[in-house]
């Protein structure tokens, strides 16, 4: 069971798990740790196979948060599950571009697009 305050809103939409970040800023260490635990539990404990991460609330994120997303991506791939990211605001998308992580992640503009054909 993941520990700490819930940092993701989870809902099921047509067989896809949509995990929406609650925080505007994904910066501080404890917060990132909690987010990581909750994300990993979706794959490791719940065995979810189709996951969309919705960033619409997120205004800031740090490289430590990117690290958790990368680990999540590895877990998803190992479990033969699928992961998409959506609703990333332009400044944050730029962070993905600068770090070339837009090449690793499947990123869609809207939640509808992310849900389509997953």
């Amino acid at each position, binding site marked *: 069971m993941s520990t700490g305050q819930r940092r993701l809103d989870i809902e099921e939409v047509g067989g896809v798990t949509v995990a929406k970040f609650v925080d505007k800023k994904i*910066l*501080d*260490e404890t917060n990132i740790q909690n987010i990581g635990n909750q994300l990993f539990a979706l794959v490791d404990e719940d065995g979810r196979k189709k996951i969309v991460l919705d960033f619409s609330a997120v*205004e*800031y994120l*740090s*490289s*430590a948060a*990117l*690290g*958790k997303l*990368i*680990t999540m*991506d*590895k877990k998803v791939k190992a479990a033969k599950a699928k992961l998409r990211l959506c609703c990333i605001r332009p*400044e944050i998308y730029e*962070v993905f571009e*600068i*770090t*070339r*992580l837009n*090449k*690793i992640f499947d990123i869609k503009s809207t939640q509808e697009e992310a849900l389509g054909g997953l």
Partner: protein
Amino acid sequence: MPVHEQFEIVIPSDTDAGQAVQERIASRLESLEFSMRDVFGVRLALEEALVNAIKHGNGLDPAKFVRVNCLIEDDLLRVEIEDQGTGFHMEDVPDPTADENLERPCGRGIMLMRSFMTRVEYNATGNRVVLEKQRSGG
């Protein structure tokens, strides 16, 4: 050039203290109407630099401190961050955008600082960094 703010503060090796400094500087830039993108970049760069100093430099050691010196002028922010660690060598930091490093979960902080700030300069030891941001035009 009018100076809007100048302070030096010594904080403990605690990321919450780092966040408070970051917030203080970002709020001041917002009140001086630096663009949203400028403030976003500064906040991100300060976060990365302060976490590096607190975690990697001082190793979260409560006996060690981080010194932050900040100067805000009309069109320029200059922040110097110094930790009490042994430093590092820039050439030892792998390029996080190289194909073989893309999936490594760490090592993107310095690159993000360089991308979003006008100038990022470490001293030879690697325990002090100067970050500068020139206000964007338009």
